[in-house]
């Protein structure tokens, strides 16, 4: 698994290749996201209008792609993510604005984020990725499903490089696991190894 670049964010901690690179001073999710954004990432003002889930996926992808050298055209790159809680944070916000008969204002700015695949959209827009992109809602990170899907894409020559992972957030929890896989290393990566890596990172973040 040494060939796989990966990031993990949870519990106010940011890991790059299993190394703790940032420990948030603030336990609040939104503040931690901003800390990661300000942690030597390039400026991207659209970040501020994203919902929490898109922000989480976005900063994970930025950290992941930073200093990552590759020769692929952006158009050949895609992204497949999994998620458990869909867009529950912004859904609740949107619902509250509909239910409030006195101050009824379902905001389009929230509405556009009430689909989980908007997070892959934001990453594609940022990087010009035009390859396969999708989000699958699953009960928990499903490495077997994800690796199978990625392998089919590579085997059928549909892509040269992919981002994959599990990005999930609710009122009082969040985590992002994201990795880069390409046509060179995809055959070496086994689903169970990937799952074990995820578990290990999760445990490290909980105890960090």
């Amino acid at each position, binding site marked *: 698994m040494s060939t796989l670049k990966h990031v993990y964010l949870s519990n106010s901690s940011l890991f790059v290749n299993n190394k703790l690179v940032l420990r948030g001073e603030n336990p609040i999710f939104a503040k931690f996201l901003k800390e990661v954004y300000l942690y030597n990432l390039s400026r991207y003002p659209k970040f501020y209008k994203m919902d929490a889930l898109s922000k989480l996926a976005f900063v994970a992808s930025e950290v992941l792609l930073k200093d990552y050298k590759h020769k692929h055209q*952006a*158009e050949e790159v895609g992204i497949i993510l999994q998620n458990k809680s869909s867009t529950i944070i912004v859904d609740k916000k949107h619902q509250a604005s509909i*239910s409030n008969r006195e101050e009824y204002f379902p905001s*389009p700015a929230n509405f*556009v984020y009430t689909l989980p695949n*908007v997070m892959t*959209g*934001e990453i*594609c*827009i940022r*990087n*010009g*990725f*035009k390859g396969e*992109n999708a989000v699958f809602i699953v009960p928990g990170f499903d490495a077997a499903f994800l690796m199978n899907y990625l392998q089919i894409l590579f085997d059928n020559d549909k892509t040269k490089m992919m981002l994959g992972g599990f990005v999930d957030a609710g009122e009082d929890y969040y985590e992002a696991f994201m990795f880069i896989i390409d046509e060179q290393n995809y055959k070496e990566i086994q689903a169970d190894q990937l799952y074990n890596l995820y578990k290990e990172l999760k445990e490290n973040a909980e105890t960090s």
Partner: protein
Amino acid sequence: MGNRIAITGLGIVSALGMNVSENLDSLKKGISGISSLALLDSVYKNILPVGEIKKTDKQLADILQITYSEEYTRTALLAMIAAKEAWGVSGNNTDRSGIISATTVAGMRTSEQHYVDFLQHKDKSHFVETHDAGDSTEKVADYLGINDFVTTISTACSSSANSIMLGARLLKANKLDRVLVGGVDALSLFTINGFNTLMILDKEPCRSFDDDRAGLNLGEAAAFLQLVPEDKLRKTDHVYGYIAAYANANDAYHQTASSPEGVGATLAMQKAIDLAGIEKSEVDYINAHGTATHNNDLSEGLSIMKVFGDEIPAVSSTKPFTGHTLAAAGAVEAVFSVLSLQKGLIYPNLNFSNQMKELSFSPVVKLLQTNVKYVLSNSFGFGGNNSSIIYSGD
């Protein structure tokens, strides 16, 4: 080309008519289905024209010869009528049959009538069951006895083009023997008000590819195609045409708008032509997405120019006939494209008068009778979910 995907059934219900022959008749006569809203109580009733099917839900149930009940939303009823026509009797007794339908509005037309009541009165809660996008697909599946693969696609205005693509792919991968593909959307306050707040609805009948275009008209429709791989055709199957190729590409530009230069649209058309293994000069007709919004017609027009250069085939949008039927549009226009191949017809782009200054071409304005071998049909969704499908006659 390997095992080709044959089209063995067509079904449609739109503002142009309740079946294939009524739709074809209106297309040939150049009669638009755009009118004032009559069957939905909206403040925009006499302001925003729509492509409405002038049958009540009860009348739709009568056509289907089923007992009308609240179990069936208008979306489900429309889908059942078009699906029944496309599936016919030839679809029966198939080993592995499937249905892929598309919708964006789902059961919203009913839900929005009862929404406030849901929260207070439990007795309206049965409408919750008909709200989700899968409901109309499952109603069709039960009605026709299709049960090996049932799924629903919702990718905005390219939804049913994507259900056609998924169906073709499942057949090519030998997962199914026969599949019903298409889509449906009924008019609802939700879509009328929603598109109105986006300020992209024309108060006049829409003018696709016109320099003075001012937006789209919404429409309602359902359309389906029956697909069979060539090696599984039966003697009783009638082949209307083939799916020669398809492609889907994104814009990576904006969540809800297409890139002005049509990056994803260009990619989708180019990839479809490459996959078909034909020269671009072999495309006889482009049935454009042509919604008549500023954004779409500009970016689609520019990408047609980019792909076809100096030799642009006949182009027209049939949205001025039907209105923009959202999730159903790709399937509606698939039916029109297959009829174009069969009958050698290129449909007029109604309401056109002023050349767009950004474009080197203008759409066909009169019905043309000619030999049509390949039709390229575009369906472009919000945020750049772009699909192009090429249909061939033989």
